[in-house]
């Protein structure tokens, strides 16, 4: 009833819908933080003299919650008297850290072959959203072939580790370690595993509930197939652009304000969905592809966080970027097809949803967007203090 008097009962139902969606909003974000989207990164470089320079970059919770890392006064550049402190990890492995780690670092650690000997003690550097540990190892007896690298704690933290090994003869091996396959044994014929970056992209979109919710919101205001094609294409082009720009290092967006604006983009769609359902119109409803393109640029920076935090070597970035983006698109297209398939199925099965049930997706999108917006704003503000 565009422009007409509001029915008090409908208003009441709308409020009930908002409350229900608000409740969902309280429940979903809590579970949303349970999985770490950013992978850790283990870089092993064999030097000409056989020494190994090893870097371990592990995400910290600081970026997720906007908190500052505790200061590490004795960390950066510090030489330690011993590499192994005698302490043990939760899994029973001897500690490699030589000092207690930040409680905000993800509870995972790399595993090196037992015969590897540490040449120089580890150094730690606190980055914006991660900790970077570096070691030097003596030339391993028998070289790198047959050496097994792994990571412990992936099943507990539900996260992946990208392993990147460069041998002295220029061979590059890249593998994604997952909770299911958490180690890599080097052999002479290994090369870059392309599937790893693809899987990272798919995982990034499937775990990025905010991105999926934005796509769902777009689907809810698209009137026909042609507009659907235009809107999804606009979103894809836009986020691919900024994903490339951010990953190649031409531009970057600070994580906390970016997360706030991504939440704002979802919140923005909530009222538009309600307006569309009421038969009203707006610029967004008439040209959803414009909004998809504009906000897609922001979401692209968000996608880039999945690759940027790795600190990949420059030579591998183009291929990684391409495959990561293809993975994101596979996840996104799969989600769109699933939603369309379900909508068609409900039509064929003549499912008649009640009014609150029909209103629920719109309210859920709006309420979750509002919740995330406020939550991320508070996180960002607490980071400024």
């Amino acid at each position, binding site marked *: 009833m565009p422009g007409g008097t509001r029915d008090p009962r409908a208003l009441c139902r709308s409020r009930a819908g908002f409350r229900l969606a608000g409740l969902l909003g309280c429940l979903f974000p809590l579970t949303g933080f349970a999985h770490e989207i950013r992978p850790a990164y283990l870089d092993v470089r064999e030097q000409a003299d056989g020494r190994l320079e090893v870097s371990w970059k592990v995400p910290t919770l600081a970026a997720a919650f906007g908190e500052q890392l505790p200061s590490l006064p004795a960390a950066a550049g510090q030489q330690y008297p011993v590499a192994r402190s005698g302490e043990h990890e939760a899994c029973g492995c001897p500690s490699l850290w030589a000092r207690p780690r930040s409680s905000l670092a993800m509870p995972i650690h790399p595993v090196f072959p037992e015969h590897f000997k540490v040449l120089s003690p580890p150094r730690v550097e606190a980055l914006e959203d991660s900790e970077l540990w570096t070691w030097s190892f003596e030339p391993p007896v028998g070289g790198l072939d047959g050496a097994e690298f792994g990571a412990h704690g992936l099943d507990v933290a539900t996260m992946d580790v990208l392993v990147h090994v460069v041998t002295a003869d220029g061979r590059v091996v890249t593998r994604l370690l*997952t909770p*299911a396959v958490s180690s890599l044994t080097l052999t002479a014929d290994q090369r870059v595993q392309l599937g790893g970056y693809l899987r990272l992209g798919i995982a990034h979109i*499937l775990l990025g509930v905010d991105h999926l919710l934005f796509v769902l919101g777009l689907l809810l205001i698209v009137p026909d197939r042609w507009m659907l094609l235009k809107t999804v294409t606009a979103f894809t082009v836009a986020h691919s652009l900024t994903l490339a720009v951010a990953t190649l290092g031409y531009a970057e967006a600070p994580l906390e304000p970016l997360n706030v604006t991504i939440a704002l983009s979802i919140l923005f769609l909530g009222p538009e969905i309600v307006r569309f359902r009421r038969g009203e119109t707006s610029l967004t409803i008439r040209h959803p592809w414009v909004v998809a393109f504009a906000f897609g640029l922001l979401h692209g920076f968000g996608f880039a966080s999945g690759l940027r935090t790795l600190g990949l070597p420059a030579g591998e970035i183009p291929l990684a970027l391409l495959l990561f983006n293809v993975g994101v698109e596979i996840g996104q297209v799969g989600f769109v097809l699933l939603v369309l398939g*379900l909508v068609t*199925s*409900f*039509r*064929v*099965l*003549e499912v008649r949803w009640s009014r609150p049930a029909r209103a629920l997706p719109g309210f859920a999108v709006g309420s979750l967007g509002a919740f995330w917006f406020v939550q991320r704003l508070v996180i960002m503000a607490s980071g400024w203090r």
Partner: protein
Amino acid sequence: MPVSLEGRCVSKRGDRLANRISRLGLVTTVLIGGCASTQAHLVNTGLGPFYDGVLHLVLSPDEMLGVAGMALLAGLGGAQFGRIALFTLPLAWLAGSMLGMTGRINLVFPAATGLALLIIGMLVAWDRALPPSMKPVIPAVFGLFMGLMNGAAATAGSLRMSGLIGVAATVFVLVALLAAFTVWLAGRPPWTRIVVRVAGSWIAAIGLLLTGWALR
């Protein structure tokens, strides 16, 4: 021109397709029968328990066949039966899984899945109109039963509550897609209904094979 059991004419094309599908069904039966242990292979996707639940169901051929059989049966029964199964089956599956996780009710016996598939497959192949009172009962009982076994497997593995929700959500999506497709297909030329019934006969055959394998 071949004639179906109901006396309806079936085209040669449909007959050939049904034959081809029957042969394919035999191969599928052998392949799935070869999967000796399909009970408790819990998958770790690395994407968290919800997706573990999704993949657990997708990679369990026996459970997938059960869901497919139920969706085909509901689809053959028309849009109304499809709607009933759409909401009853996932909820019953979830309830059964939660019960199964408590470990208080243990219905797991070697031939359980095989028998369930046999019954559902035979109902699809039989293609008779079910009494209205049975329409909510069949998916509810089937869902509870499969869920109980699923819950027992979840207890043995690491599938938590969100994993069970992932399983139930996947059941919902599969039933929606497949039941709607069957409703759409059953409204086409008569031979398409035969194709669905042939698919039901595979499921029954696989159920029989799994039962025999379990009781050997």
